[in-house]
């Protein structure tokens, strides 16, 4: 990737540089390389005017048809889902019937009464189910296509509304009856005044009708006679004037337009001209920019489904669309080449852990938790399956165990995390069972001490309060004791020693989950709030009581509501919008807890990208901040290692200083998903301090280096304005303020105002490096970098 984007300053060609800008500022798509060479161009207004009225009517009719079709298809899909559900239940009964000979006899005796389907064999039911699923898939695909059409049509309508046209007569509007919503008052369209002169070339001019983000926009361009004109002057809306420097190799410049320039009319007219030493000016190029609020929800959405975007990721998602990206992530088809290159794996095994950490004898604590931190951090930073990593952290935090002082399960600890990564997109029930049947959880919450004589409520309580129905689940003290009794005998078995000791010479033992019938309470249990009686079972069958209970809890409506609201807290907003939670619970209900449809119901909500009320409302958690910063700096070990175990120890310890301790959080609640918790002074201070530290470790290059630094060099920027806009753009997803920009800009030059770039001279390269990392540290400390 780096190679493709590299540029040789000696044979610098304009189209190549422009293509770099396109790659990185992917939202601003159309590039007018050809225009640059052409004579002064002004956008034709009349032609677009007449055609856009007809277009608008046409689009409106199409819109209404499409909306109707969508409604039909939704109904169809619902029916199909209903069918799948009934088929699935048939299949289940068929399967259970096949299990016992008695049932088989019953089945042959009175088949028609038991089943709705003509064939009673599970194979046939399965086939029917498969067929139904196929059909549903087909419908979903069609529905997606319709949604796509709807989007394009809406976009066309918008474009038509902003296109230069005289106010259309009311009669020309499509009949009101066809439209579902009342037509908004026609917006008077103002013709564009964009006109370009070859003296000042613009490299990223938005196409006619395209809008830019109202948060701001950077104009990249070049001055033709850069030997004479050393600065470029920009006048915005005839009032505000600013200057930017012009590069001395190719005449490049960048001018940043800010939020305030779009205030009022969502429009900024920028006049650009070169100014020479005597104050003489070149000819003027005028750009007419139109801004909309919702032009780029993609960058923000990416910050939630990943640990921070990179230029490549923006480009990729821009190309394939967010929906496809989510599907790609759910199918685990993300790019894992970097992860593989650095040797991080999805699933740690004991031997691998051992080979990785055996030489690190200086750790005061166990080597095992420590290797987990390395692998988790490495995956969070380098794994292309970012959503999987986000969900792994979510589940590990939801089913939090504290590794501190728990020497007895540290050898099993990698398996605990492996499970959450393995089942990240599985069924909730599977994930719940993974935690319930893990030695880690049984030891951490004392269920190994839960027996028929002395009931220990600890795990039973948290199973309900934290893992499933939530604290308002409706259970009382008696329910709690009954649930604890159901879980008596769930404990841990020790399997002798494995063939090595840890660095203290301690033999390490593997432990597995175990059910001990001897200490299981075999009486019946009445759980009032679930309205169920669990029949007491003796012997090995006693474990089925707990399994029955956990299966019931996994599908309880309160569990759906509780876990969904936590998910929505993480993926949408600190105050979970009701609609998202309901959609999530609905998807849960209809699929019995499949995580993929649940995530789709949240992430592929039509408003997810565009809803302004949930935009920029979340502070990054310290973990998101640190991993995000690592990705922003593109930190790598020099020896092709990604990060080393020492780095991850360092990073995790620093994250823990903010109070966000993923591996040693003492209480079973796990860390708060509500991001405002992490906006406290002490926590904030710790993250900023260590954020700066990491930037400077990358600068010193003793251990690690910053890929972003080398990439920025290869992009051939000539002026501090270009570099400032570039760095802030990838750091904040183009959501930065004027004061952020000015702070960064000021620190990219020395006290005489000199900007060092692509310096071959040793001393100057040092200066270049110093200014670059100063700017990076300022970005890491800026308010804009702290929020999603």
């Amino acid at each position, binding site marked *: 990737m780096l190679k493709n984007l590299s540029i040789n300053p000696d044979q610098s060609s304009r189209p190549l540089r422009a293509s770099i800008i396109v790659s990185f500022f992917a939202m601003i798509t159309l590039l007018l390389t050809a225009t640059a060479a052409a004579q002064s161009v002004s956008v034709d207004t009349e032609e677009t005017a007449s055609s856009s009225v007809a277009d608008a009517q046409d689009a409106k009719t199409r819109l209404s048809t499409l909306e109707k079709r969508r409604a039909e298809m939704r109904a169809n899909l619902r029916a199909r889902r209903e069918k799948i559900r009934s088929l699935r239940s048939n299949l289940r009964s068929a399967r259970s019937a096949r299990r016992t000979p008695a049932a088989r006899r019953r089945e042959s005796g009175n088949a028609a009464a038991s089943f709705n389907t003509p064939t009673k064999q599970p194979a046939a039911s399965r086939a029917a189910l498969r067929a139904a699923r196929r059909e549903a898939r087909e419908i979903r695909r069609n529905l997606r296509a319709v949604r796509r059409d709807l989007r394009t049509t809406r976009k066309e309508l918008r474009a038509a509304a902003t296109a230069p046209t005289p106010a259309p007569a009311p009669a020309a509007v499509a009949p009101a009856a066809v439209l579902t919503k009342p037509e908004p008052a026609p917006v008077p369209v103002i013709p564009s005044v964009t006109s370009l002169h070859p003296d000042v070339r613009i490299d990223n001019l938005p196409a006619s009708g395209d809008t830019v983000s109202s948060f701001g926009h950077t104009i990249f361009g070049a001055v033709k006679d850069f030997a004479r004109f050393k600065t470029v002057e920009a006048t915005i809306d005839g009032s505000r004037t600013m200057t930017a420097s012009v590069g001395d190799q190719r005449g490049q410049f960048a001018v940043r337009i800010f*939020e305030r320039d779009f205030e009022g009319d969502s429009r900024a007219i920028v006049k650009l001209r070169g100014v020479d030493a005597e104050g003489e000016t070149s000819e003027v190029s005028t750009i007419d920019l139109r801004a909309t609020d919702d032009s780029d929800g993609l960058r923000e959405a990416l910050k939630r489904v990943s640990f921070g975007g990179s230029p490549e990721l923006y480009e990729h998602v821009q190309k394939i669309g967010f929906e496809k990206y989510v599907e790609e992530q759910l199918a685990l088809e993300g790019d894992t080449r970097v992860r593989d290159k650095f040797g991080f794996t999805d699933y740690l095994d004991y031997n691998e852990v051992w080979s990785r950490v055996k030489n690190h004898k200086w750790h005061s604590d166990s080597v095992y938790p420590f290797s987990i931190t390395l692998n988790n951090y490495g995956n969070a930073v380098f794994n292309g399956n970012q959503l999987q990593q986000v969900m792994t952290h979510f589940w590990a935090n939801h089913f939090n165990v504290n590794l501190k002082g728990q020497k007895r399960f540290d050898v099993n600890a990698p398996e605990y995390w492996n499970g959450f990564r393995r089942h990240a997109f599985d069924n909730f029930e599977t994930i719940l069972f993974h935690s319930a049947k893990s030695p880690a959880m049984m030891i951490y919450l*004392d269920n190994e*001490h839960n*027996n028929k*004589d*002395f009931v*220990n*409520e*600890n795990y039973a*309580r948290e199973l309900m*309060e*934290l893992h499933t129905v939530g*604290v308002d689940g409706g259970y009382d*003290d008696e329910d709690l004791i009954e649930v604890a009794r159901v879980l008596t005998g769930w404990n841990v078995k020790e399997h002798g020693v494995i063939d090595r000791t840890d660095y203290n010479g301690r033999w390490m033992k593997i432990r597995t989950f175990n059910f001990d019938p001897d200490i299981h309470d075999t009486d019946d249990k009445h759980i009032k709030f679930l309205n169920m009686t669990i029949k007491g079972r003796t012997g090995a069958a006693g474990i089925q009581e707990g399994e029955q209970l956990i299966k019931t809890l996994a599908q309880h409506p309160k569990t759906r509501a509780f876990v969904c609201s936590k998910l929505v807290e993480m993926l949408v907003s600190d105050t979970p919008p009701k609609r998202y939670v309901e959609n999530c619970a609905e998807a849960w209900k209809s699929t019995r807890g499949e995580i993929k449809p649940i995530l789709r119901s949240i992430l592929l909500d039509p408003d997810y990208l565009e809803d302004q009320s949930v*935009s*920029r*409302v979340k*502070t990054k958690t310290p973990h998101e901040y640190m991993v995000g910063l690592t990705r922003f700096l593109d930190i790598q070990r020099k020896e092709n290692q990604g990060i080393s175990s020492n780095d991850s120890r360092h990073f995790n310890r620093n994250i823990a*200083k903010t*109070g966000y301790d993923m591996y040693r959080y*003492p*209480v079973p*609640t796990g860390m708060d998903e509500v991001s*405002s*918790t992490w*906006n*406290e*002074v*002490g*926590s*904030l*201070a*710790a993250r*900023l*301090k260590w954020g*700066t*530290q990491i930037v*400077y470790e990358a*600068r010193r290059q003793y251990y690690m280096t910053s890929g972003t630094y080398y990439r920025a060099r290869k992009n051939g920027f000539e002026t501090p304005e270009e570099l400032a806009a570039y760095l802030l753009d990838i750091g904040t997803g183009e*959501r930065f*303020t*004027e*004061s*952020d920009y*000015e*702070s960064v800009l*000021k*620190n990219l030059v020395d006290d005489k105002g000199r900007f060092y770039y692509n310096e071959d001279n040793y001393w100057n390269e040092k200066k270049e490096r110093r200014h670059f990392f*100063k700017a990076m*540290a*300022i970005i890491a*400390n*800026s*308010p*804009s970098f*702290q*929020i999603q």
Partner: protein
Amino acid sequence: MPSRRSFLKQATMTAMAGSFAVGAPQFAFARTGSGKTFIKVFMGGGADGLHLLPPIGDPNYYLVRPNIAVRQPDAADPSAAIKLPGHDGVRALNPNLSPLMEIWDDKNLSFFPATGLVNGDRSHFRKTMMTNYAAPKGDSGGWIGRYFEYASSSTHPLRGAGLKAGSYALKGKKRLPVITNPRGLDISFPDLCAGDGCSDNLLTNEVLSMIDGANTHLSAIAESQKLLIDSSDIIMSSWDAHSTSAGGLEYSESRLGQGLKMAASLLANGHPLEMATIPWDNRWDTHKHIIAEGDNPIGDQNKYYNKNLRNGALDLLCFYRDLKSKGLLDNVVLLVATEFGREIRENGIFGAEHGHAGCWFAFGGPVKGEVALDSALPEVDPANPRRLRGDDRFLSYAMDYRDILSEIVVRHMGASESVVSKVFPKWDWTDRKILTA
């Protein structure tokens, strides 16, 4: 031009110098607000009140806790309880809390052996949250947050703070800082500044200018960052200037010790800290092994629980002596709280499950020095002491903790009585007269 920090350092130094000259603290900042301080120390996990302040006079206690009960006072036995003069044969003190005897003897320490939020809840998280919100619904923030909204006019950045850890109680309309490390608030970085000791404050100044330019989306984070920079100078300069004078005792490195030291340094340097919360560990959730193995189950300092209790008591004593020697004791009330006590009977592994009333205690100049409002253990069948059903498993509440807090807000902090209903909504205060003033 001197930097902000060096200016503040100088100001504190002058204050210290002044204190030597005239024998009383001089204030670098004008005190606003009440001039009084309340500190809440929280034992997370539900500390076992019957273990901290064993009801040695109650035979039921020894019936339900055959293994873990604290033995009758005996000067020769390191695991035996310590007599509380004036309460002989009723309640005694856990031997690990013996450092507190000095405060008891000064008549500045009170125990509330059966208090907490009166309801039947036994979940850590809900009870901790509800105790700290002290309101029927958590929406209106925590009670300290409401205190600053309704009862205090102070605008000092450190008028209220979470020291070492945050608390639900601090949540409110006005943001209060949580300071985990007194030096941790300094965001300056040696490689990112110039001049002697980072005197150009480059990073801090850049962050300040970015805060000024923050838009509405960034207001919450910018407000935090501003508070961070404002508090940083104050807390660091007081921390550096503080010298503990506690008769040879020093604050420990634990969160409690460091939190208390932060509070003491702020108060000693004249900063108007009105309310602070400090954690005393999260490890009081003793489902198992509250005692050490062997014949010295409670005195054995190799047992973490015992050591933790002892070290905490020493820190509290250090704080007490420190304030007393600086003449600040009359301005301060410190209350040690927990979310609930534990079941009266022990379970099978030398612990006890979650219970109801717990033992809280307070010290400070205005504290009376008594064991206030005890409640007796439920009757136990001697033939079958473990067969306890329903509420018989728990120590019942003698009073709601909001009575204690209301009295502190009114009588100590000097707020008007009408404010009580705003700080503690839907609460009728019963005056228990626990303070002398």
